[in-house]
């Protein structure tokens, strides 16, 4: 993926992080990981995971942490959500 696109993903991830860092309940990082899982296409998720693997330049701490967890879960199961969770996604 080009620098341009990664920059865009970094910006988007930081935007998401700024929302979830303010949430105390439930835990912000987990919610952010979930958000990326639910709304980001695998292509975008792979690109941001690769970026974090290379140091994650420009990403805020919550975003780095959330993407790391995303990387761990991506290996475990292709569809990581619990059944029946879809109703409240919007």
């Amino acid at each position, binding site marked *: 993926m080009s620098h341009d696109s990664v920059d865009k993903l970094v910006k988007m991830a930081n935007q*998401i992080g*700024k929302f979830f860092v303010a*949430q*105390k309940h439930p835990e912000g990082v987990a919610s952010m990981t979930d958000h990326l899982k639910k709304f980001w*296409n695998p292509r975008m998720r792979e690109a941001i995971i690769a970026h974090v693997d290379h140091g994650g330049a420009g990403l805020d701490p919550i975003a780095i942490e959330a993407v790391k967890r995303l990387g761990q879960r991506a290996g475990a199961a292709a*569809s990581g959500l619990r*059944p029946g969770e*879809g109703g*409240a996604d*919007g």
Partner: protein
Amino acid sequence: MTLIKETDYGTPESKSEKLVTLTIDGKSVTVPEGTSIMRAAMEIGTEIPKLCAADSIKSFGSCRLCVIEVEGRNGTPASCTTPVAPGISVKTQTPRLAAIRRGVMELYISDHPLDCLTCAANGDCELQDMAGAVGLRDVRYGYDGANHVFARNNGEVNFDWKPKDESNPYFSYDPSKCIVCNRCVRACEEVQGTFALTISGRGFDSRVSPGMDEAFMESECVSCGACVQACPTATLIEKSVIAIGQPEHSSVTTCAYCGVGCTFKAEMRGEEVVRMVPWKDGKANHGHSCIKGRFAYGYAQHGDRILNPMIRESIDQPWRVVSWDEAIGFAADRLKAAQEKYGKNSVGVITSSRCTNEESFLVQKLARQGFRNNNTDTCARVCHSPTGYGLAQAFGTSAGTQDFDSVDDADVILVMGANPTDAHPVFGSRMKKRLREGAKLIVIDPRRIDLVRSPHIEADYHLPLRPGANVAMVTALAHVIVTENLVNLDFVKSRCDWDEYQEWAEFVSLPKNSPEAMQETLGVPAADVRAAARLYATGGNAAIYYGLGVTEHAQGSTTVMGIANLAMATGNLGRRGVGVNPLRGQNNVQGSCDMGSFPHELPGYRHISNDAARQAFEKDWGVALDPEPGLRIPNMFDAAIEGAFKGLYVQGEDILQSDPDTRHVSRALANMDIVIVQDLFLVETANYAHVFLPGATFLEKDGTFTNAERRIQRVTKVMSPKNGYADWEVTQLLANKLGLNWNYTDASQIMDEIARLTPSFAGVSFKRLEEVGSLQWPVNADSPDGMPIMHINGFARGKGKFVVTEYVPTDEKVGPRFPLLLTTGRILSQYNVGAQTRRTENSQWHPEDMLEIHPHDAEDRGVRDGDWVRVASRAGETTLRAKITDRVAPGVVYTTFHHPTTQANVVTTDNSDWATNCPEYKVTAVQVSTTNGPTDWQHQYRELTAQSRRIASTIDAAE
């Protein structure tokens, strides 16, 4: 088929629950207290002659034709202004009454032309009907004296006569036929709320007068058509009726413009529309309309409409007209080739919020079943996707909580980032009616929209916040509500998650969130914010209506959740008169979202990773579905620029004009191997298309639309598609060429499939809709007749969720280079990108987009009213003409985006909402300077447009 005629009861319905029984012509009738005798009579089928009465407006009692006798009472009172009383006995026909009525009619006719045979209203004239009903046989007075009928009396100029006013392109006003019943004036006041009409003069000199005796087009008239509909004669009549003649049959259908979803009677002669008349039984509009739905349907016959399929190898070539078979074959081959070469995820679709539910359902089905990916998105991405996300988080459903009628019970109306009188005009009129009855109004908008101050309406508080400060505003309002102990704790404790509430309350109570601390950010005096918050929390039933000024921001989703927080904290949910109401932009935004157009969810808002939901579709469609979310529109563009996304099928959506950062979009489109555009016209996106599939208008197909109040209504085919196929049939042709073997022969079969697979639509079918008129989802075993008001006994998700709404300033900041903030919006007469309305006479009202700029900012830059100005942002620049006005605050400029040559989206940036990627149209830092004319980009773009619209062989354009 016959002409649908609704019953006119003469006076409005009484809402009293107390019943009164009386006798009319010997028949007993029981009606609510406060009902007029006229209406009570009509309830039992007794039509009392009338001219000045109609049930859409209050009784007036001027024509004296509806006189009656009441046993034991003196005189002959007017039945329209006389309320029923217990036990009275009314006579509607006696020799005395007949003589009075004949006398009244004789006077009317003595000052009315007798050209009935050649009159356009012949056959649809109440004056004619009443002359017949009262048995008028003779007019003894003659026409020799003073009159309004003839231009000359005995060769002398008659100064009482006035020529026809033909200034309005859609209807004419012939003063010589006016009987001064005041119905038009009252409809303009009571139904539309514009107060453009009045009666000038007195007695014999009384005349209907637009504005100060101006022509209709010069007056404040907004051309909604209410006066034309109210007129009992040919005084105000549609020019189309004059041109064509009276209609012979009609069908009820749903307007294809905004999210209000007005229903109309399409009145026809054969396959020709004579006129569109708002349907009285329509639950969204109750017989009212606006200029777009009522009059702007002529685009269907416009010469620009393309009626034959076309293809081209590459976008620098002229178009070639081909057969449907060849076009579909070409499209299918290229899609297959792209997937073979670049992988299954390299192609996708965009569904349309202008098309029917059935059509959106099929387009997303094509992606999921045919392409085997979830690369489907819809234009709702760029307008209300934050609503879907935010309300689902807070309440558990991606939709507004109320029906439109609920506004009648609102005591406080809070309008935020919406401009209902322009963008949702029929609902705007409803809202204004309630405001005139005394409801309080809070407007949160950077611009002084018409609602802030217009005839008989004045906002109690207008909070003209800086564009981009929405979250700061909702949080500051919440701060006041919590810290001043205005929270409805009973509601919060019983209905919402208490822990989340406490965290939220603690957050909003922080001193940094007070209106005083936020004053600099908001640009609004703290005292006004406090007063508005108190009014919202304590003023009785409080309802929030919001629009794209809330959603189209970097923090759009956060603001939606902030709005939900306010409603929950004050207990303003779950009953009439309250709620959270998104005003949807396009006619079927709600429906296209409901139909699974988004890349992460199946129809009915079930996440694609939800195994049970996915399996139901897999079983029905016979393929395995990809459990991962697909690409959203902006992600598709990004992937296209990278070379990973190569094919797009766009139905009824002009992404090049409507999406932000035009240069980015055009680069993405230019990088694709196959772009298929299905539309009525060669829209801007078609500049980059390889296949053009002609679309059908809403008049030419069957289906359903779902409006902003979740109301599913029928769209009825009233004429054969000029292009040969309904849009769903075209999708089916493509699907079958890709080997999917679809066999729909009727749109109703698609709805049956939707109902089978979507729990919230389980009880919906065309048959059911025809029986009941409309249904508000969810329609299922729990609510078989639908649900006008949601969350009555509890939220769909269980406990309501409070979300902490931290304000994050947008990246789009003003600075020395770009010191002004540009925000965008709509105007009444034009619709969205204008593809339809620009091809009607509506352009007479709005021929070009203008840049609204405050006098101070204009003076600083030497800009005079009407000057060409250059608007530059970090993304690009464009030129348009300036309009100097204090409707915008200093530091803020505003424009509409209805015209492609303006290219407002060349200027907007690719900033977007954090949760949904909804573009931040509403905030762009710009500089404005004087200029001589269009930019190089505009010149180049015009050349490109001309170049890419070349068609090699002649085609049959529509007449």
